[in-house]
């Protein structure tokens, strides 16, 4: 039986016309991407869950309100909503340095990259979980560029425009993000088994 491929633009149009299943398909299709993007900015699951819902509430109101005008580009559009909400939250919260970690513990987090913060990182069993933790230790500007390029799929020029810096600055921040992740992996004696990262065929 031949599978019918429906693109995002068609799903969006169907949803605007009242097809709830089309919306469900979009949510399922992009839930990981959107949630991961939000989480890596705000750094706590509870907040990421709230902002994930806020993102879709905003999207629903815009789509159903007839104000959506980015046909065919649903993912970048909704990722931008998610990113803006996450950044707004992060910048608001920055004034209060107490951060609640996933395990519920409160730790002082200066939000700066430091030897101590790396050393106090809890070692996770799964390699990808550990990498996720290490991303959270990156300085804000580096983490922002890394999330925007890798998870939001924005070009370096788009990131430069969105953050008000030159493309070389954006590239430099990405470069340091990659280098710092690598350093943190080494310092944590991170068993970086590349076999874990081989995509299933």
């Amino acid at each position: 039986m031949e599978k019918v491929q429906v693109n995002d633009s068609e799903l969006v149009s169907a949803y605007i016309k009242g097809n709830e299943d089309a919306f469900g398909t979009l949510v399922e299709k992009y839930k990981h991407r959107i949630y991961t993007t939000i989480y890596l900015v705000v750094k706590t699951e509870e907040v990421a869950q709230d902002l994930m819902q806020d993102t879709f509430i905003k999207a629903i109101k815009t789509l159903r309100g007839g104000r959506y005008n980015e046909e065919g580009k649903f993912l970048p559009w909704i990722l931008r909503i998610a990113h803006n909400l996450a950044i707004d939250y992060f910048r608001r919260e920055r004034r209060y340095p107490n951060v609640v970690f996933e395990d519920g513990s409160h730790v002082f987090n200066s939000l700066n990259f430091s030897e101590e913060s790396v050393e106090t990182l809890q070692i996770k069993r799964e390699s990808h979980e550990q990498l996720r933790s290490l991303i959270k230790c990156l300085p804000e500007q580096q983490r922002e560029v890394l999330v925007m390029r890798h998870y939001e799929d924005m070009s370096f020029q788009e990131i430069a425009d969105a953050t008000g810096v030159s493309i070389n600055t954006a590239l430099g921040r990405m470069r340091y993000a990659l280098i710092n992740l690598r350093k943190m992996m080494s310092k944590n004696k991170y068993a970086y088994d590349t076999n874990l990262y081989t995509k299933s065929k």
Partner: protein
Amino acid sequence: MRMTQISTLNQNDVIRYLYNETTPQENDRIVEALLFDVELLEFYLESVETKEGLDQVIMTPPRKVINNILAYSKKYAIEA
């Protein structure tokens, strides 16, 4: 100082290459540079490995969050 500057620019080029933002002409020059510059090659290979790791950082929201979103959409449609 000059050496550092050259190295920085090259690494930025490698990052653009890593994320498919280089032109075919630039690709040729970068591939050639990787053949002759061991440090640059090391940076590229490490970056590839880190990028592959980043691809695996995928989080799944709890089912209740998805259910809340879908329920909100249905409710919004009824109320509109």
